[in-house]
């Protein structure tokens, strides 16, 4: 950790220096989340709350979807925005090649740079999840049925989703390091809408998962583990030579 801390801090600072990119991307994440919460509020939550006895399971489902989307948006948009731009820049300038010639281990460079991208996303994701939890509760639920939150929704939103994106970030950076950053970016860009859409469809249209149950949380953690296994397999085959030759 001692070795990678300068890589994390310096790269985070360097990545976040482009204020325009940060404002545009993070602003977009916030706007999408507000629109999603408003749509859910108007189309699903308000009609449910207007019933004589609102179904708490449904309210938890809606809250769960909004929190799930909030975390995914924050982390996903961050990965696409910071991950891609920093990878392109660092490859064209030879930052990574120079670091590889220092005493720092390849694993530390990869981990440090991945964390430098992940940490701002984690902060943004957790913040958006927290905002959506508080806002949905105080705007819709508290006046009528009180505070709604299942512990498993919280674990999924605050832990499982960041874990998925942490593993995905490691994978994306690994692909970018040893190949073309644009390929890594395609994975980062495509993952967010595809995963989010599949989960929302499954939750709304089927009874396979109950968003407030431990099975949903465990499924997400399991998915993160699958990505982690792919990362471990790929990582074992990475060498400095492969990285340098990918320039």
């Amino acid at each position, binding site marked *: 950790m001692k070795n990678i801390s300068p890589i994390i801090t310096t790269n985070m600072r360097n990545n976040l220096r482009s204020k325009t990119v940060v404002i545009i991307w993070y602003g977009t994440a916030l706007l999408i989340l507000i629109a999603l919460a408003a749509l859910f509020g108007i189309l699903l939550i308000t009609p449910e709350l207007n019933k004589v006895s609102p179904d708490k399971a449904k309210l938890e489902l809606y809250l769960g979807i909004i929190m799930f989307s909030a975390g995914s948006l924050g982390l996903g948009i961050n990965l696409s925005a910071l991950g891609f731009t920093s990878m392109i820049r660092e490859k064209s300038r030879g930052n990574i090649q120079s670091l590889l010639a220092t005493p720092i281990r390849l694993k530390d460079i990869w981990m440090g740079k991945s964390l430098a991208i992940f940490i701002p996303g984690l902060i943004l994701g957790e913040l958006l999840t927290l905002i959506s939890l508080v806002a949905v509760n105080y705007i819709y639920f508290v006046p009528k049925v009180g505070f709604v939150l299942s512990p498993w929704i919280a674990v999924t939103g605050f832990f499982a989703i960041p874990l998925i994106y942490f593993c995905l970030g490691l994978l994306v950076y690994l692909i970018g390091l040893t190949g073309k950053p644009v390929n890594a970016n395609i994975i980062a860009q495509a993952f967010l809408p595809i995963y989010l859409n599949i989960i929302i469809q499954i939750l709304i249209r089927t009874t396979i998962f109950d968003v407030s149950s431990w099975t949903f949380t465990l499924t997400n953690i399991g998915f993160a583990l699958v990505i982690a296994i792919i990362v471990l397999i790929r990582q074992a085959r990475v060498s400095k*030579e492969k990285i340098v030759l990918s320039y």
Partner: protein
Amino acid sequence: MNSAINIENIKKSLGNREILRGISFKVNRGDIFGYLGPNGAGKTTTIRIILGLFKADSGNLDILGQDIESSETRRKIGFVLDLDGLYDGMTARENLIFYSRIYGLAMVEEKIGQLLDMVELSGRGNDRVHTYSTGMRQRLALARSMVHDPEILVLDEPTSGVDPSGQIQIRKILLNMAHKENKTIFLSSHNLDEVQRICNRIAIIDRGEIKLYGELEDLRKKMGKSGIIIRSSNDIPDEVIKEVKRSPDLGLKEVKDSNLIFMPDEGTETSDIISFLSSRGVKVEEAIKQEASLEEMYSNILKEAEPS
């Protein structure tokens, strides 16, 4: 242990292409070693092997008697690669602080100041690197290579893309590093003039093979067939010229007005030529010894290596 870098019979292929075909050379401590060769000769691959970015397929490499894989050895090497690797969004100072932290050093302001002074960037230390010219970037990269006070500097074409005044500045810095800071410098370059001016030893690589290697002065003597220009204060009679031509050991190469240019055989001294001419009434005004330039040596080597 006098050798800083010792390369023995290193071979390296990338895909089906043989990049290095068993190269060997030694860089002694205190050398400014010029590594020359055309594009694609294997210079950058050699540098990447020295820095541990590539693994050789076979052969031995030791740096100051140690393996390059050890982190202790890496701490003894500073480098400037083909891409400078500077962080554009950060200032020069921040770049130096970052690299000093990478080497586990607590960089003090004084040391940064000294490094920026050395590369003549002290006035621009707080400017972001994206505002720098190519020459300034290269100078900063040189300063960065020195943050951990390495014993060896490995530089891959540090003056490439730099304007002439920037090149002069960089040469001055390199000489400073070698003589005042006592560093061993391994300098890969296309710039023959630069190598001729600052290097004491060279190796020329072509198509993955070392074609020439040794002390620059020795190589000049051995390879260059030093020429001698004799200037006469009077016109040289045709009969004398004919007579000179009849003595092949004198090696008359060219006659220009009252100047004679000789490429004598080994064993023929300048004094032999002068006494030959004086005894035939030629008034020798001046005898100039012309040494072969690195450029001549380089182009001869590459010409010889060309497939017929």
